[in-house]
């Protein structure tokens, strides 16, 4: 199952690159640098999805104390942090030629950086607490609190005046995006979602093996 997911992710990433570079047109105002969007935006969506999975699994762990739920929360939050790191880094690379700066302390960038640091703290907490049960409990609480910040990140562009543009897709009303660009974005999202699911499945398996080895 995990292997099949891995092959699907590899095929998806190949399809995403073909669509993003071969099918989607050159953007009129930004030029080809806009193609970073096919990586930057899906990466944050996959990070959001992973953190939502982590949130649900953390709540389930606190309610039932099942180790499987804790392992899923750990894996999902770790993978979400990897994707969020990619999102922040590619955003900085895209920001330099288009905004003239790698980084600015506007509401969107600052709020996403806060969430990233919170999830880094989540991963450090997992390593820091020796008692596994206690560490899992603390991490579940931190994972829930950190995931609750995601709406703040998403709506920050509406609530404050920011350099970052408002969402083009996840918003009320229809999108003004060209259909070809929209399809390229969605294909890349599907590809990265498959990659994220593959990483979560594999990481969960590793965590289960680790627990077995420690028992």
């Amino acid at each position, binding site marked *: 199952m995990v292997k099949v997911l891995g092959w699907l992710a590899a095929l998806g990433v190949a399809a995403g690159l073909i669509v993003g570079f071969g099918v989607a047109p050159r953007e009129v105002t930004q030029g080809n640098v806009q193609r970073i969007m096919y990586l930057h935006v899906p990466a944050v969506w996959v990070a959001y999805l992973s953190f939502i999975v982590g949130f649900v699994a953390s709540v389930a762990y606190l309610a039932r104390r099942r180790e499987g739920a804790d392992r899923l929360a750990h894996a999902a939050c770790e993978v979400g942090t990897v994707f969020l790191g990619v999102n922040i880094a590619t955003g900085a690379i895209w920001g330099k030629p288009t905004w003239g700066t790698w980084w600015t302390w506007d509401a969107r960038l600052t709020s996403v950086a806060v969430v990233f640091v919170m999830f880094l703290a989540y991963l450090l907490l997992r390593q820091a607490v020796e008692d596994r049960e206690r560490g899992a409990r603390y991490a579940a609480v931190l994972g829930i609190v950190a995931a609750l910040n995601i709406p703040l990140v998403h709506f920050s562009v509406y609530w404050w005046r920011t350099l970052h543009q408002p969402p083009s897709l996840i918003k009320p009303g229809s999108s003004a995006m060209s259909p070809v660009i929209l399809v390229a974005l969605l294909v890349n999202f599907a590809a990265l979602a498959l990659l994220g699911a593959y990483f979560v499945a*594999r990481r969960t398996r590793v965590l289960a093996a680790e627990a077995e080895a420690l028992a």
Partner: protein
Amino acid sequence: MPDNWGFVLAAYGLAAFVFLGYWRWLIRKEHDLRALRSDRAMRSHSPSRTAHPRPEPGSRAPLP
């Protein structure tokens, strides 16, 4: 606006580096755990080399 292909390459290259690095880290961790498990299995099945070998019941002499 110029195309800035260097920035596009940097973004995709960095993402590839991170994703491949994470994938390789997972594979290495799985490999280490598998090696540890097989090592443990071998130790539990092989006779102890540190303890004294126990003689067959028929050859044991009663304690004085």
